[in-house]
């Protein structure tokens, strides 16, 4: 682990020097702070996590950083919103093709406390996530942040984009109303137009030659378990690569050689620590 400097702490949070005399004059706030610190120390002594947390939090970023760089984190926040609201929806949803699905969604919307809010957050959050992921992809592309050594980060990002679109497609069927049903029929038939393998891909999605009883359950399992697991794992890999390789400078601030190292010559003092 590199020997990182201790972060600058504001004066008001710096530990005060101990008063003379015995320690029984400590204020309740000092006692609470000491308890918290010793709890964190207890965990850190056994896991050595503080080194890793410092590595993650006190990274250097280049000069010229702007709000476009927040789009990636915004996309992840939208994904976390979908995951949490999805968990709460899953506590009430029934994937039953003979009417139980529609009824369970109606129950969530009408009868469950804050059900309409959670369902709406999930529905609109899906559109928000798609928009943010495309904006993030556009930002990375136009800033040239996919070039060496960040090609693998870009590839993982493309796979995440495809998985996000697949989440949208499978999730759309779950309310099982007329719009969902026919949109899925149309979507699966579009898949079927690919030559040779198209019909088999359609059959695989539908679980058979016709839209049947297993199709809704299949889509539900894909939407709830298969793809979220893959997305979580790939987000972890994507974030690790980003933190390891650093943030690249905007293209108008890169040198003539196109070198976009995020830590230029320290003597030039042009690095900003966040």
């Amino acid at each position, binding site marked *: 682990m590199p020997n990182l400097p201790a972060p600058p702490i504001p004066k008001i949070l710096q530990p005060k020097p101990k008063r003379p005399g015995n320690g029984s004059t400590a204020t309740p706030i000092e006692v609470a702070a000491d308890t918290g610190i010793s709890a964190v120390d207890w965990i850190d002594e056994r896991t050595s996590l503080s080194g890793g947390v410092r590595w993650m939090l006190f990274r250097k970023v280049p000069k010229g950083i702007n709000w476009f760089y927040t789009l990636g984190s915004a996309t992840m926040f939208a994904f976390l919103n979908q995951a949490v609201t999805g968990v709460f929806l899953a506590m009430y949803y029934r994937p039953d093709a003979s009417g139980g699905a529609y009824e369970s969604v109606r129950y969530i919307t009408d009868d469950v406390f804050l059900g309409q809010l959670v369902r709406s957050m999930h529905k609109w959050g899906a559109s928000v996530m798609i928009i943010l992921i495309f904006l993030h992809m556009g930002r990375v592309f136009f800033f040239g942040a996919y070039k060496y050594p960040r090609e693998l980060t870009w590839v993982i990002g493309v796979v995440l984009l495809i998985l996000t679109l697949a989440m949208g497609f499978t999730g759309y069927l779950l309310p099982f109303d007329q719009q969902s049903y*026919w949109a899925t*029929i149309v979507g699966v038939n579009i898949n079927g137009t690919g030559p040779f393998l198209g*019909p*088999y891909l*359609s059959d*695989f999605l539908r679980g*058979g030659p016709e*839209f049947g009883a297993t199709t809704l359950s299949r889509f539900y399992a894909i939407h709830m378990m298969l793809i979220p697991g893959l997305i979580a794992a790939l987000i972890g890999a994507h974030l690790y690569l980003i933190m390891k390789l650093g943030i690249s400078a905007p293209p108008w601030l890169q040198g003539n050689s196109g070198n976009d190292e995020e830590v230029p010559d320290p003597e030039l003092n042009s690095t900003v620590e966040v």
Partner: protein
Amino acid sequence: MPGAFEGETVTRRRFMGAVTHSAGGIAAAAFALPALGFAIGPLFSREPFNWQPIGYPDDFTEDQYSTKVITIVQGIGDAGNSIAYVRKRDPAIDKGKPNAYNHFVALSSRCMHLGCPVRYVPAAQRFICPCHGGVYDFTGQVVGGPPVRPLDHFFTRVHNGLVEIGPRYSVNFQLQEFSPRDPAQPLNGIGQYLYPKRFDTSILPKGSGKTP
């Protein structure tokens, strides 16, 4: 090989490694293969199709279509139903050879563009698809819009005095019969090879004069 005696072909280390790897492979296959079969099994399912009664022979005429609700997937209630437009065969416009399965003409309501349900408009004698504007004429032939082939037909028969509807089959622009394909897959020219027939999903009637 390092560590091998004279003439030894497999060291004990390598043998132990190979045995452990195969044991691990067998354990992984024991749970992975059933899971894989479970996921792709439906692709290869073959189910016999049930002939469904839809009315008496006198209920249908040659010049207008009757709308009948049929069940294409059992057990899921309304989501498994579809609509068939049925009329009596008219020798003036149905030019194919008459056999036991086409005394009545039954058209599927799935548009051959992307699968939306088409609506029969009696005043215009046309089938109109609401999604993207596909139009079919009285025989199911495409007369406008994006569909890539005419409407699918169902086999029909008269059994115990009732008209029954059977498996579906697809046609191309020349009204040549094919085994059922999904919408959006054209069947002219090389279309039938680009989009091969899937494994038979229904026991088709014998003597139906079938169908590549």
